[in-house]
């Protein structure tokens, strides 16, 4: 189980728990805030208890005088922590301590000759007139436990313990309930993340499909959706692969027929055009197949340790040679040799695509800068390749799309400039297969910068020991 510090988990848990606690507090408050609503049977019992203790106190007072009564009352107070007092009929104190609080009730009893009852904070207070065996009359006043405090007693440690237990138990139950509700949601979220990351075979755990509640329905629907997506995507990829493959046969025939034509009719500019376009078609089909292969990636790509600096400078040399025809330059800045683990052919084509793209769109007469350097991100060492052109850049809103197949920025970048719009898409797939990232951003005042991060592969020394 993951650490449940997820917002939904916390919310549900806290709400449930708060509800339980609030209910408890409300119950207690009802007792405290309704002072005179003690049920009548409790009332009778309380009066009976008071009358009984009172009778004993009066008897003690008549037999042994005020001191005997005081001893008895002190014993009650010691054992029960309940305040008890004995007065004579005139209202003067015979025994008991701190009896001023009963003053109001005593006056009431003296006036009415009736018992008085009062209740506050779960403690009942009773004052009643009593007659001793000698015929003397007394007034007995005492506190009696009633309500929740009657059950709990008034020991503070006990109250704290019982509150603690109540909190723990309710907290535990709320935790279980919340976990029961949120775990499937978290699992489902993990599954959909994996699905979004490209693992189309992901399904939510089979165990959750057996739930008969709404979450079970959700999981079943999710899995059905995932199957459908997987099916659609794989069919689309298969289609691209099949179509490209089938296009190759007529293209192969066209190639031979064209060559036959040349042999018979001699050289003609029309033949050159045809050959150029056949070449372009052939290249596009090749790239489409590469893309389809990278997307399906059924078989793992074979990877070996390789010298990235060497590979990049090779590409730069070729690109530089070609761009000199249009007054351009491709400049490489690399401070040391960087090694990565990868597939040389794929990486070469990815980097070539990125650099050629920059050469194509940089303004004529401006250079393309290629920088290779080291980057450390959270203790992992990366080789960072930056390719910057001085062209007009790409509108911000379209930056995210330039790695999609056949995507073309609407303005300026017309088909006349060549290429099939597959180069950056291939680069993106290749870099991701190598565990790297690729992103593009506009640079002020003008130009586009493509940044590639590839995980570094050990140091040069290790490389040569292999």
């Amino acid at each position, binding site marked *: 189980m993951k650490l449940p510090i997820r917002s939904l988990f916390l919310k549900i848990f806290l709400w449930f728990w708060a509800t339980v606690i609030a209910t408890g507090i409300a119950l207690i408050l009802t007792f405290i805030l309704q002072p005179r609503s003690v049920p009548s049977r409790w009332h009778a019992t309380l009066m009976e208890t008071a009358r009984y203790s009172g009778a004993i106190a009066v008897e003690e007072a008549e037999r042994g005088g005020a001191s005997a009564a005081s001893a008895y009352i002190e014993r009650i107070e010691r054992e029960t922590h309940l305040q008890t007092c004995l007065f004579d009929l005139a209202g003067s104190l015979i025994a008991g301590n701190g009896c001023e609080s009963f003053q109001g009730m005593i006056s009431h009893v003296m006036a009415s000759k009736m018992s008085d009852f009062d209740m506050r904070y779960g403690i009942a207070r009773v004052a009643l007139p009593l007659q001793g065996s000698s015929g003397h009359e007394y007034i007995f006043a005492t506190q009696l436990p009633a309500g929740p405090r009657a059950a709990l007693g008034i020991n503070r440690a006990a109250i704290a313990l019982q509150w603690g237990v109540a909190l723990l138990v309710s907290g535990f139950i709320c935790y279980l309930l919340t976990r029961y509700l949120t775990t499937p949601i978290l699992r489902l979220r993990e599954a959909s993340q994996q699905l979004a990351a490209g693992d189309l075979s992901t399904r939510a755990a089979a165990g959750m499909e057996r739930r008969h509640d709404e979450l079970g329905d959700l999981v079943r629907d999710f899995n059905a959706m995932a199957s459908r997506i997987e099916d659609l995507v794989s069919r689309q990829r298969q289609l691209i692969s099949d179509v490209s493959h089938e296009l190759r*046969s007529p*293209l192969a*025939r066209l*190639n031979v027929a064209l060559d036959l034509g040349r042999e018979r009719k001699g050289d003609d500019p029309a033949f050159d055009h045809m050959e150029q376009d056949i070449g372009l078609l052939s290249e596009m089909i090749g790239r489409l*197949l*590469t893309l389809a292969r990278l997307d399906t990636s059924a078989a793992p790509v074979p990877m070996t340790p390789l010298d990235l600096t060497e590979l990049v400078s090779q590409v730069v040399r070729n690109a530089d040679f070609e761009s000199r025809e249009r007054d351009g330059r491709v400049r490489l800045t690399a401070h040391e040799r960087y090694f990565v683990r990868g597939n*040389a052919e794929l990486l070469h084509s990815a980097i070539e695509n990125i650099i050629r793209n920059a050469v194509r769109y940089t303004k004529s007469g401006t250079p393309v800068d290629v920088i290779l350097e080291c980057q450390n991100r959270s203790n992992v060492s990366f080789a960072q390749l930056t390719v910057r052109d001085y062209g007009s850049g790409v509108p911000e809103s379209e930056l995210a799309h330039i790695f999609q197949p056949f995507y073309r920025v609407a303005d300026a970048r017309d088909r006349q400039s060549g290429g099939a719009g597959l180069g950056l898409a291939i680069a993106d797939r290749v870099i991701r297969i190598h565990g790297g990232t690729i992103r593009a951003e506009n640079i002020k005042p003008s130009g586009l910068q493509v940044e590639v991060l590839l995980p570094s592969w050990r140091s040069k020394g290790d490389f040569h020991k292999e």
Partner: protein
Amino acid sequence: MDRILIVDDDVELCRLLAERLSPEGFVIEAVHDGPRGLERALSKEHALVVLDLMLPGMGGLDVLRRLRAQSPVPVLILTARGEDVERILGLEIGADDYVPKPFNPRELIARMRAILRRTAHVATPASPLVAGDLRLDPAAREVWLGDVLLKLTSVEFTLLELFLREAGRILTREHLTEAVLGRKLGPFDRVIDVHVSNVRRKLGPAQGGERIKAVRGSGYLFVARSETK
């Protein structure tokens, strides 16, 4: 006039190729399925077999495997890209070289010529080359390891002959490709490496270690063992 067998299920392509190749001095026979292709290839009537890997009936790799069990005839495979693994497998099974589809006919002709030049090359009756327990007889085109006759394809034979003649010297991959396959080394071209590894596998290890050593960054080296036996 070299007789060439083309095994490809694209009938129209075969017809066009025959038309294109005959002025170049090739006699073309075309068959369009695997089993028939294997039968014709085993007839020993052809100087070269051009084999497509995608064939109905029996796949090109199966045809090649069965052909190699009985015949060292040179084989050039045609592959559509996207079959990289099959291309390497084809070379390992014993194809001489490959041409990706769609191909430029001139490229195909150049590769065919290179292979034919090598096999037609009749060395002036030379004395056998010997290295330890290994003996190569250029006249009979036979290689003996101890008293076992090795089955090498013609490209493997040429490669080994080159190694023996230049024993103890580093041969670059560029040089080997040009000398053995008759063409320039392309980018990411692993054909020569597959051939070298085939030869290595067939020779097995010598008593003193590897017979053919890879030299990182430059090429291969046949270890001369004047000190052994």
